[in-house]
Structure formats: C-alpha cells, structure tokens
C-alpha cells in the first residue's frame, strides 16, 4: 500500500478531532480554541470557517457528523448538538464532571458514547440527548494515587458492545443492552510509572477499535518509556481476540515514537490504520492477521485524529497545527 499526502493546511490551533458528513466536501474539526471549524477540502485553496457560536470553553476532542447535525464533546465536560445549516447549538448537555476525551457514534448512529476523566462511560440518545446508560468500572486513581484518565471508546460493528480504555492499561468491554461488563483485558506495557527518576507517569491506552467482524479488538498507545519527560516510547499496538481474552499480536514500530492516538479498520479488509506521534506524526498500516507493519509514513506534526473516506479513497488527518489530506493505493 502506498500513501501520498495531497494537501497540508496550516492552522494556528491543535485539531483533536475531524468529521465529515457522508459524501460531503466539508470537513469539521474540533479545535484547541474551544471551537468547531469547517474546511471545504474540495476548494482549490481551502479556507477555515469558524462556527460563530462558541459554546465549549476548552479543547474540543470529539466531533461526529450526522445528516444536518454535528455532535461535539470537549474537555469542559459538555456535549453539544449543532445545526450544521445555521452552525448554531441546538442542545448543550453537561455530560461529565471532567474532560471528555472521545465520543463515538453507534454503527446505526442512534447513540453517542462519551468517555471522560471522571472515569465513566456514558451513552446518549443521539436524537434527544437523553442519558441512556452509564458504564462504571475503571478505577478513579492510578495505582500510585494519582487521577486516572479514560481515553477512548469504540463500538463493535453490531452495536452490541462498547470498549473503553484507560491510562493504566485496562480495557473493559461492556454489553450495551444491559450495561454489564463482558470482558476485562489489560495492556499494561502502555502505562509507564517512573518510581525513581521522575516520580510520575505517562502513556495509557489512547485508542481502540473493533475489527469489522467484531472478533478482534485493537488498542494503541506507546511502549515503555525511559525518559518520561518526552513521548519517547515506541508507537505500540496490541491486538486481542477479546472474547477469548487472548493477546494475538504486540506490535511496536522501530521507526516511530509516540502515542497511537487513533486506530480504524478498513471496513472490508484485515488491516487497520494507526496514527499519532511525538513532536512529529506518523501513520502506520497493520495487517491484523499477521501483525505485520506494512506501512510507516511520517508526518510533520503530531496527528490526533483521522477519517477514512472509502468512497473518495481519501484519508483526512487532523493534528498539531495541521489539517492534511492523503490518497492511498493498494
């Protein structure tokens, strides 16, 4: 597989999340300026258009587009529903008491999952904004008595399970219908506690996704870190047969260091794309059947999120001061 960067747009902000309505040309990005912005990537010279209304008060870390509507989540703990035509907020909910790290739409787009540093996963009715269910099972504190963090969440393709992952390397898989815990897995290598030199921690599982057949669960972060002042652990992915509670592959890049911030499967194939970075960024293609890293592509800044547009054979990445488009060919 070959990947080629086509556009590399600069912005003074940090883009934590990107979304697009199916088939549309506009990209929506959640930003460090507490706002949501739109970019028309089909334009010859795409220009950033800020939503005039600013309802969030901190970094916007999750955006998802539905027809005519955008849902955003932010470090301020709120979820907002936006009218994409008027670019105004239809509904705002105080959803969590701490930072919302990620949101995820269910496969049928009827539910929104949110995870936050209050260590609670929540399900919301995507139409009404009503709270449907909560998932509580992650420890509030790390084993060393510091606040833990709940970084990411993902839906199984059939919408029956939700995975949530935390700082200390705990993966919990929940039954959506009942709220009961289905499986508990661990990826402890992704959490580094330095008891001697620096006496704090770094890392955590930053990304998670299910395979298209629902059998595999893939998580991303970075490997053990020597000097925790920097993101100097090797980019790391672990692949589980989650129902059998078996780790199938442990993959660490020898080329790239830093956090794997987002992972997503190709919808019809047995490979996934993982992105992230340290000061700079990377994109990695992983064959999940063999555990082979078949693609390692660098980027000039850290990547926080991406979306794959299979109709357009286009990849869009958002990250530190950059919004970029890429094409790929097998």
């Amino acid at each position: 597989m070959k990947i080629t960067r086509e556009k590399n747009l600069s912005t003074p902000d940090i883009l934590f999340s990107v979304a697009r309505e199916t088939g549309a040309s506009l990209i929506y990005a959640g930003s460090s300026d507490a706002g949501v912005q739109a970019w028309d990537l089909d334009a010859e010279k795409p220009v950033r258009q800020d939503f005039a209304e600013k309802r969030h008060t901190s970094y916007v870390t999750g955006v998802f587009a539905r027809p005519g509507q955008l849902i955003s989540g932010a470090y301020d703990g709120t979820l907002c529903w936006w009218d994409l035509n008027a670019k105004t907020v239809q509904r705002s909910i105080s959803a969590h008491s701490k930072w919302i790290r990620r949101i995820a739409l269910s496969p049928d787009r009827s539910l929104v999952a949110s995870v936050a540093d209050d260590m609670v996963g929540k399900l919301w009715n995507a139409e009404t904004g009503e709270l449907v269910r909560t998932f509580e099972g992650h420890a509030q504190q790390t084993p060393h008595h510091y606040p833990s963090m709940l970084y990411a969440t993902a839906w199984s393709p059939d919408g029956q399970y939700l995975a949530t992952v935390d700082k200390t390397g705990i993966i919990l898989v929940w039954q959506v219908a009942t709220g009961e815990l289905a499986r508990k897995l661990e990826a402890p290598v992704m959490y580094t506690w330095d008891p001697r030199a620096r006496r704090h921690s770094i890392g955590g599982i930053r990304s998670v996704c299910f395979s298209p057949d629902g059998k595999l669960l893939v998580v991303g972060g970075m490997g053990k870190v020597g000097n925790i002042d920097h993101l100097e652990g090797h980019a790391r992915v672990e692949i589980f047969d989650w129902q059998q509670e078996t780790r199938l592959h442990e993959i660490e890049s020898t080329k790239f260091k830093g956090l794997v911030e987002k992972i997503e499967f190709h919808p019809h194939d047995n490979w996934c794309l993982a992105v992230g970075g340290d000061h700079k960024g990377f994109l990695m293609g992983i064959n999940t059947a063999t555990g082979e890293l078949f693609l390692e592509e660098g980027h000039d800044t850290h990547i926080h999120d991406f979306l794959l547009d299979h109709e357009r054979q286009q990849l869009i990445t958002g990250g530190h001061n950059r919004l970029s488009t890429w094409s790929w060919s097998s």
Partner: protein
Amino acid sequence: MNHGFEKRMSRRALLQSTATAGILASDMTLLDVLQQRLLAEEVRQQSKRVILLWLAGGASQLETWDPKPGRPTGGPFRAISTSVPGIHISELLPRMAQRLGDTAIIRSLNTKVADHGTGATIMTTGRVPEPGIDFPDLGATVAHELGRVDSKVPHYVSMYTATEGRRKGGPGFLGSRVGPMFLTDSLMPANLQRPEIITEIDHQDRAQLRGFLAAEFAKRHASPAVNSHNSAYDRVRGLMSSESLFDVSREPQALRDKYGPTQFGEQCLVARRLVEAGVPFVKVARAWWDSHGQNFETHQELCADLDHVMSALLDDLAERGLLEQTLVVTLSEFGRTPQINGSLGRDHFASAWSCTLSGCGIRGGSVYGKTDEDGRKVIEDEIWAGHLFATIFRAIGIDWKKEYMYGARPVPITDFHCAPIDEVLA
C-alpha cells in the same frame, strides 16, 4: 547540674517555644537577658522557620499560579476563583484556591536562564554563579542565620528522593556546619540509629568518658578547633536523639490521612515535625515537572499532589500556631513556555514565571507582578532571583543587607541591586 547548663537549657526551651511570652513571664532571669536588644532580636529571628517546596524540573506557571484561560497559550484548564476576591488560579489547585489568605503569589520572575543546572543554581543561591566563589544556597544561609550553635537538631534538612535533577546544594563558603542533611533514599537518615552491639548505657558511658577527656584536653589546649571538635560530637548525639522526628508513624492516622499516601505527603509531614522541633530550614523536592511531552497530563498528576499536600501542610502549621513563624515557599528552577509544542508539552521558560510565599511575614492574599495576556513576558513589576531572596530574608527576620566576608571580599547576603518586595510582606 551546674548553673550554666541550667541557664542554657532554659534558653533553649525558650527558643523552641511558640509561646515565648508565657515563658518570659515565668522566668525573670530571662527577662533580664532579653533586655539586651541583640539577644531579643536573636530570639525573634530564631523562632522563624522555612519550608521550601522545590518543584524540581520546572512547574508550569500557566497550570498553577498564573493561568491564561481562553488564550492560545492557556492550555485546556480553567481558572477558578479563590478565597481572595479577584485572584484566580488554575483549577488544578482547588484546595489552595481556598487557602490563598495566607499566600502571596509572585507572577513576575524573569530569571533569564532556562537550563536546569544553572537555573537551579540561580534559584537556590539567589544569584548567578561566579567562578572562584562558592555561594551558599538558601537553606545554608537560613541555617547560618537562624540555626543555633548548640542546637540538638539539624540546621538544614533536604529531602530529594527522585534521581532526576537531584542536586545536593550546600553551604558554599559558609562551611559544612550549615550544609544539608541530605535524604535521598528514605524518610529516615541513614546511620542515625545506635549500633545494636552497643547498649544505651555503654553509649552514655562512652559519651561521658569522651566528654571528660575532651574537657581536660580543652583546659590545656583551648582553641576554636578543639571547640569545633567537641561541638561536632554534641551535634551527632543531638541528631541521634532526633531520630524520632523523621518517623511519621508517630503522628495520628487522621493527620497522616490529611497529608495523603504519596511520598511527597509523608515528606511534608516530616518537614512539619522538623520545623516544630526547631529545624530552621527544610527543603522538600517534588520531582519532576519537566513536561516537554504531555504537559497537561503531567500537571494533572503533580498538581494534584502539590495541591493536596501543600494545603494539608498549611492547615497543619496554622492549627499548631506555627504558620506565623514558618515561611512556606514554592519554587522551581524556571517555569514553562507559553507555547504548546507538538507533544502537547511545554518547554523550559525563565522569562515570565511564578512562585509563592505563604505564612511567616507574608501579606497573604496578595499578587505581585503581571504577565501579558499570553504569559509571554512580564509587563509589571519584573523581579529577579535576588529580589525574591531579599523578600524571603526580610520575611523571616534576617537582615537582607548583611554582608559576609569571603576572605577579604565582602559578599552581600542579597544579590546586588536587589531589595525586598514590600508589597508581599506583612
């Protein structure tokens, strides 16, 4: 017991007491000696203590005392109101926000040097290092000024258990007597316990015999060297008897819970025990704030520790009536860049950063200095390390204009052209 010893012990009790007036009233002999102005000043000074919370590696001013919410440099945290109307600090310090009545914030340090080694030297000695002269650090200077020759407790205790950035610091030209007791591996000083093969009676007998022989020798060979030799033995015995000061298990569990389960919490509880027993200077280093990557996550951990422990320490000191006599300082070698780097980190930055002073001699609830809206530079009341040191000296009753003699060279205790910041002094 001879009269001299009795008198010395009474004076020691006086100096260690926080209720000086009551003791004075009951001892007319001491009232007489206190009529001597210099001794009265000594008493006043010697009841003062300093606890330095050294935030090693460089804490971010933006995530602590000088937040810039809503600005591109501000990061994701909110600013919260405090117990002092009009003053806001980072939401990462909610407990301290409710205790600002005893604390002054200085937001205008410009110390220029942003490397760990030189930055730490500047911020622990109050001046730029010079070749050919070894300046004492703050702890040694305070120990020299406030410590008593006949003290049975250490003058200067420094705790630094992390290995990154560990620097012992020291007495410089003031001499090893005021150097730190440096604890790196545990709360308890090494080799303080009496060897098990020696009984307590044997230990005392040996001391008495040594004391007798030393006294006989001193009669025939009186000299400063002989006196120093003997005082060293006295200090060692004093240190051995102060072993319990380092044992936090002697504190009620409820109080230990207030300080929390972290190592920093236990160390600060030891610090309180030490200053209560009369140790003039205790440094507790909390490493390591050098958050080039993941600054915000790092500060969520470290600020949680700082906020919990510092607020418990101030409460504990206040409840014991010690806060009026104890200055608590938070300080680093520098702050962190307003610019957020690609790893969501902040790098070294010494041009506009913050520290705090709490308790003894401080006008609580005050803020001194101002940075611009993005925190990139100081726009009001810029100060240098020397101003901070002069302020600390003044707060604890040390003559900040004093000069030491290093050979034939006079060395001012405060860096040249620096004076205390009156606005933060009570």
